[in-house]
């Protein structure tokens, strides 16, 4: 390979790797944005990040590549997943846009921005590159080279980063910490409360009077309305109660429709449209 080629192109292997993994990264990014459920998004993002880690390695940033995997994919993404679980694994976005024109504006801006960036990069005269061989070996390796820079030229920034991290940690603790404003109840008090309260017998179990017996489906009261009491508190807070009352109504509607079809009624279509079974996402929103 002559000198010019070394300064303008990379090895074919890297090119091959780039085109394959690049595609994967873009797909991962797209699915992060487009998938309904947060968990799926998180997993696609993790994929993209791993791909990026590989790219770092390919670019000679060995340290960063490893850090990317360990810190980002390992720690940060786990944190994301953890929070997703806390908030509700099944809590899925409706992809229905509520703000008028937001989606088109957003897409337009992003596209325009991307095109601008790409045009800018294309315009810049970046045809040659130096490669990191010399820089990486100057101090005996990539890690040593980085360390050399961090502890000399960038030592201030590094120190400040430390302060930032500590502040962030404390901040997170403060934000999530809940002050206990009253004395914790003793077991005795709780039992007394229980006896004096409205529900002397144990709370009804979920799903008992409903057609499902899943934990997130409330029991139905005699008049057909759901009773939130039957669902455990955590789920209630997350808003993950599935309201079967509407589902049963929908079933009823379906029944009517079918019988209507059989009887050949005129307005069957209208009835059917109005009684479209609600999606689970809407269910959860309605419960909030």
């Amino acid at each position, binding site marked *: 390979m002559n000198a010019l080629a070394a300064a303008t192109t990379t090895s074919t292997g890297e090119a091959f790797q780039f085109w394959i993994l690049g595609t994967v990264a873009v797909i991962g990014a797209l699915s992060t944005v487009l998938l309904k459920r947060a968990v799926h998004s998180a997993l696609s993002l993790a994929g993209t990040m791993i791909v990026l880690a590989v790219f770092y390695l390919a*670019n000679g940033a060995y340290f960063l590549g490893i850090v990317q995997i360990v810190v980002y994919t390992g720690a940060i993404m786990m944190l994301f997943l953890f929070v997703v679980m806390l908030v509700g694994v099944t809590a899925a976005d409706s992809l229905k846009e509520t703000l008028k024109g937001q989606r088109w504006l957003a897409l337009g801006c992003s596209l325009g921005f991307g095109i601008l960036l790409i045009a800018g990069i294309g315009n810049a005269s970046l045809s040659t590159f130096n490669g*990191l061989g010399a820089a990486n070996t100057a101090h005996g390796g990539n890690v040593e080279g980085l360390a050399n820079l961090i502890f000399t030229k960038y030592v201030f920034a590094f120190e400040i980063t430390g302060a930032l991290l500590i502040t962030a940690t404390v901040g997170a603790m403060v934000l999530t910490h809940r002050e206990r404003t009253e004395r914790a109840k003793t077991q005795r008090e709780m039992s007394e409360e229980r006896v004096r309260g409205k529900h002397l017998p144990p709370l009804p179990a979920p799903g008992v009077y409903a057609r499902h017996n899943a934990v997130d489906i409330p029991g139905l009261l005699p008049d057909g309305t759901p009773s939130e009491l039957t669902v455990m508190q955590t789920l209630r807070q997350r808003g993950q109660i599935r309201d079967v009352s509407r589902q049963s109504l929908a079933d009823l509607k379906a029944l009517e429709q079918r019988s209507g079809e059989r009887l050949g009624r005129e307005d069957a279509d209208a009835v059917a449209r109005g009684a479209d079974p609600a999606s689970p996402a809407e269910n959860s929103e309605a419960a909030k």
Partner: protein
Amino acid sequence: MNPVNYLYLAALLFAIGASGVLIRRNAIVVFMCVELMLNACNLALVTFSRMHGNLDGQIVAFFTMVVAAAEVVVGLAIIVSLFRSRHSASVDDASLMKL
């Protein structure tokens, strides 16, 4: 192949992340998209580092990672506490910026 392709990829990822921030309503996903944008920047920085032949770009990328980590910690804490008080992780629910 010229490493400049990495830059195109970074721009693409950045744009995708940005659109995600603007479109998604779930705060957690919004956050993920922000991370995606940051990662795109990092990729660009690493590539620059290679093109210039020095390690400064990598250092900046490293700092970006640290800052991102701190941001995620605080951000997620905010989301959790927001969720606790409002029972929702939708960014549209916090529309208090209006007078």
